[in-house]
């Protein structure tokens, strides 16, 4: 469960979030969608308590929060195996050297199996592919059994197959363990088959609800402050600004696209 109520966050000379509201019931799979710089990371960091809001309230319920940070770049020579990274999710905040513990090892093995990472558990984590590293970071975040999982752009820089695998894994966790997932992305399309909630951020403001309620021309035009077309092409959704305006397609993988006309 996650409730964000009238949340505003700003830095000197930059109001990042203004009056953001949404509620995610337990077991939601929510996409936090917006272009680069729309405030997705700031919102996640505020929920985590890493950023102090100017005003507003956040309720996360019981059970703690798991977090997968953005753009983890693990050194190829880092002397940590995949299982060591997961184990640090259990007691990495404790002082001292960990003593051998069967229960700790069982918890790690069980989590590795849960995310389908048993096969590469003993490999150096920096040698793993991007998708495998994301699995390990998800296992690290979940090994203490949080009820809310925040992921900051976990699909960025992954190939298409890895994107599908990570989304399928998260969907399985939501269905089987009733975890609430809030995942930031600038492309909503890979998430469309699995997400049942969406929080759409633009210019620091937000709209939220079921996907079909939010991803509509009238709703997004109101959010952006100018006319927005929502176009469906072969099951993919394109969010495009009107003729003559700066156009941003949330379908595109990286940078916004600027067009002057739409055929």
């Amino acid at each position, binding site marked *: 469960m996650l409730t964000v109520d009238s949340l505003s966050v700003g830095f000197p000379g930059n109001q990042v979030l203004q009056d953001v509201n949404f509620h995610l019931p337990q077991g939601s799979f929510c996409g936090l969608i917006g272009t680069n710089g729309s405030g997705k990371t700031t919102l996640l960091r505020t929920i985590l308590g890493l950023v102090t809001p100017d005003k507003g309230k956040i309720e996360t319920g019981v059970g703690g929060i798991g977090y997968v940070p953005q753009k983890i770049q693990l050194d190829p020579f880092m002397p940590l195996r995949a299982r060591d990274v997961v184990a*640090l999710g259990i007691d990495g905040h404790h002082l001292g050297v960990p003593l051998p513990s069967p229960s700790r090892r069982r918890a790690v093995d069980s989590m590795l199996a849960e995310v389908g990472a048993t096969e590469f558990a003993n490999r150096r984590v920096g040698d793993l592919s991007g998708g495998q590293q994301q699995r390990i970071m998800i296992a690290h975040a979940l090994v203490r059994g949080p009820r809310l999982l925040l992921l900051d752009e976990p699909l960025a820089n992954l190939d298409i197959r890895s994107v599908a695998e990570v989304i399928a894994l998260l969907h399985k966790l939501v269905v089987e363990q009733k975890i609430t997932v809030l995942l930031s992305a600038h492309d909503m399309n890979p998430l469309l088959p699995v997400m049942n909630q969406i929080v759409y951020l633009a210019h620091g403001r937000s709209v939220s609800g079921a996907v079909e309620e939010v991803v509509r021309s009238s709703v997004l035009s109101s959010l952006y402050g100018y006319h927005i077309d929502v176009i469906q092409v072969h099951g993919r959704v394109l969010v495009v600004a009107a003729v003559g305006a700066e156009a941003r397609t949330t379908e595109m993988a990286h940078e916004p696209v600027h067009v002057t006309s739409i055929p």
Partner: protein
Amino acid sequence: MAMFSPAIFITTAGFFHNSAVHVALAIGGSAAVVSAIVGVFTVLRAQSFAGHALADISSAGGSAALLFGLPPLVGFLAMAMLAAGGMEVVGARQIRERDLVSGVVLGAGLGLTALFLYLDISMTTASNAANMVMFGSMFTIAPETMIPALWVAVLALVMCVLLYRPLLLIAIDPDLATIRGLNVRLIGLLYLLTLSIAVALSAMTIGAILSTALLIGPAAAAIRWSCRPGPAIIIASVIAISATWGGIFLAYDSFYWTRNHGWPVSFFIVTIIFLAYLASGRTTALARLRRAITA
């Protein structure tokens, strides 16, 4: 090449009965173990340059101690800790920013070193001050330094044990540590103070300039050999202590096989470390080749 004698390892009989050797083995060994362990975390945190900078800056303390008649350990340690605190106060989290801060503090420290070494040479009888401070002089370490040095080494080892898991977690991502309730900045400061102990000990033994070799070399070789932090620390310690004790032995022996022109300990230590690093690259490449063939 008339300075060389054909005989090798001719002096082992006197080696273990020499009090200067005892001091060198004890202080060198402790410096090696501390540097190796701290070095693994230094490589993990991508703070090799900070380690090098702290070592060079500590030379200002070492040269000041000579000038004022203080124990060298006090000088090296005080200046390294002061610089470590200064680096953390600036509070740079990004690697690039950290390197800039390290570089600026390094420049200031070396300026002080230049001044103190000039004053050492011109105002005291320490005509060999520059060589002692920058390149070490292990056989001339005062025996009364041994006990304080060992206590300082123990303190650094305790800090490494305490900070073991938090440092690993922070190496993955500092935010992960923060949301788990760790004070990342405080841990960073404690780590830098531990690093300053390691570089002060090694600067006192193999010299400020070469202490980076003891800090980074064994750790860099060890993390190529092992993908686990515990074994990497053990391997780094074995390399460092083998290099240090081996270097002491060879330097002692070289006095005879070079006909009374003993070579510096530091030279042998860094050479052994360099060879270990080269060997680690070779075995790593072979392991990758084997994996590629079997895949």
